[in-house]
C-alpha cells in the first residue's frame, strides 16, 4: 500500500459543498446528510489507494457517497410510498410519449421543483441531480450509478416525467 497522494485530501475537500448538497437531497435530514458526508470522506481516505490518478475524483466521491447511502442509510429512511408505479416500472418507450403543449411553463416555482425532486424515488432523484445539477456526462453517471448509459437515459426521462406530474399536482385548484 502506498501513501495517499499529498494533494488527494486537499482536492477531495474542494467538493465538500456539492457533496453536502447532494447528501441532503438523498437523506432529507441535515444531521444524516452531515454523517453521510463525513462517512464518505472517511471511506474515500481509506480507499484512496484504490483511486486511479487521472480519473475523475469528483465522480468517484459522488459514487462513494451514493453507495454509502444505499448501504447504510436507505433501509432506515422512509422512502415515500407515493410512487407513480406505472411511470417507474411502465414499459413505455421514449418515442411513444405525449409531450405537454407548453413544456417550459410547467416548471413552476423553485420551491415546488425542489419538493418534486425530493419526493422522487432515489434512483430518479440521483440521476436528475447528477445530470442537471452536477453536470456529469452520461458516461460518468453510468459509472457512478454502475448502470448502462441506456438505463441512465431512460431513468432521466422518467425522472423528468415524474417531476412534471408532481408539479401539475401541486398547482392550486
Amino acid at each position: 500500500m502506498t501513501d495517499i497522494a499529498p494533494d488527494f485530501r486537499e482536492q477531495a475537500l474542494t467538493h465538500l459543498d456539492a457533496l453536502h448538497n447532494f447528501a441532503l437531497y438523498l437523506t432529507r435530514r441535515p444531521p444524516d446528510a452531515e454523517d453521510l458526508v463525513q462517512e464518505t470522506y472517511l471511506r474515500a481516505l481509506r480507499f484512496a489507494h484504490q483511486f486511479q490518478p487521472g480519473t475523475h475524483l469528483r465522480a468517484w466521491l459522488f459514487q462513494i457517497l451514493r453507495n454509502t447511502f444505499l448501504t447504510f442509510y436507505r433501509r432506515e429512511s422512509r422512502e415515500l410510498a407515493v410512487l407513480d408505479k406505472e411511470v417507474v416500472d411502465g414499459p413505455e418507450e421514449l418515442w411513444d410519449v405525449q409531450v405537454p403543449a407548453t413544456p417550459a411553463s410547467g416548471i413552476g416555482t423553485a420551491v415546488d421543483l425542489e419538493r418534486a425532486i425530493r419526493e422522487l424515488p432515489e434512483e430518479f432523484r440521483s440521476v436528475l441531480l447528477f445530470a442537471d445539477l452536477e453536470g456529469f456526462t452520461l458516461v460518468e453517471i453510468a459509472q457512478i450509478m454502475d448502470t448502462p448509459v441506456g438505463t441512465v437515459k431512460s431513468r432521466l426521462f422518467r425522472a423528468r416525467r415524474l417531476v412534471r406530474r408532481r408539479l401539475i399536482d401541486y398547482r392550486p385548484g
Partner: protein
Amino acid sequence: MDCQEAREILEEYRRGELPADAAATVEAHLARCPRCRGLREEADAMAAGIRALPRSPAPAALARRLERLRLARPRPAPIRWLARPWVAAAAAAVLVAAVLAPWVQFRGRPPEDPLERLVQSSLTEHTRILLQLQAVAGEVSDPASAFATLRSLTDVQVPSAFAGDEELTLLEARPTVIANRKAAAVVLRDQAWFITTYFALHGQDLPMPNEGRVQIDTYRPYMRQVNGFHVIYWKQGDYAYLMVSDLDDPRSRQLFLKMRKAL
C-alpha cells in the same frame, strides 16, 4: 432520422456529447418535428430550473471536522504484508464487501443462542459506531481518564492496552450494551484508517463453543466472518472480549494476537 432514432440520442445532443455530424442530423429532425422539439425544450427548461435551485453548502462545523481529518495524515510506512499481491487482492475484496455488502441487519426477535447474540450485538454496535464517528478527527487525548469514566459507567475494567500505541490510535471509548450486558467499547484505527472495535464485558458465565474456533499462535478464539466483517470472541479471566473489524483475515488475526498478548 425518425422520432425513435432522434429521441434515443436526444439526451446526448442536448448535452453536447454527440459528434458534429450526428448532432446535425438530430438538429435537422428537431427543426421539422414539434413533438421532439417539445421534449427537448421541456428537458432544457427543467435543467435550467434545477441549476437555479438554491444550494445547501456544508455547515462550518462539518467543514472544520473534515479539515482536521485532512491534516491527520497517516504515517507513510508501508505495511509489508499488504505488498504481497494475494493479500492485497484479498484485502480489496474485503474492502469492497464492506462498502457494498448489504447492511448488517437483524430482523425480528434476537436469537436465543447466547453466542449468536454476542456476535450479532457486537456487529450491530460496531456498524453503528462506524456511522457515528463524529469524534474521529479528534482522538481521545487522555485514555486513562476516559477508561476511568467508562469503568464507573459499566463496571468494566478497561485494559490499558486498549489505549492504542504507535500502530493503533484510540478514537473513542464509550459505554454500550452487548447482549443485554453493560460493556465497554473502544474504537481504534490503524494507519490506513481501518476501524476496529473491541468490546469488554463481564463474561464468566458466557459460553465458549468448540466449533468455529481458530488457532492463532497459542490461542484458540472463536472467529466468524459476516458481511465482510471479522468477529473474534475470546474469554480471559472474568471477562469476555469481542473484536469487530473490516480488516481482512490475516490482519484481523494479527490484531487479535497483539491485543490478546497485551491484556
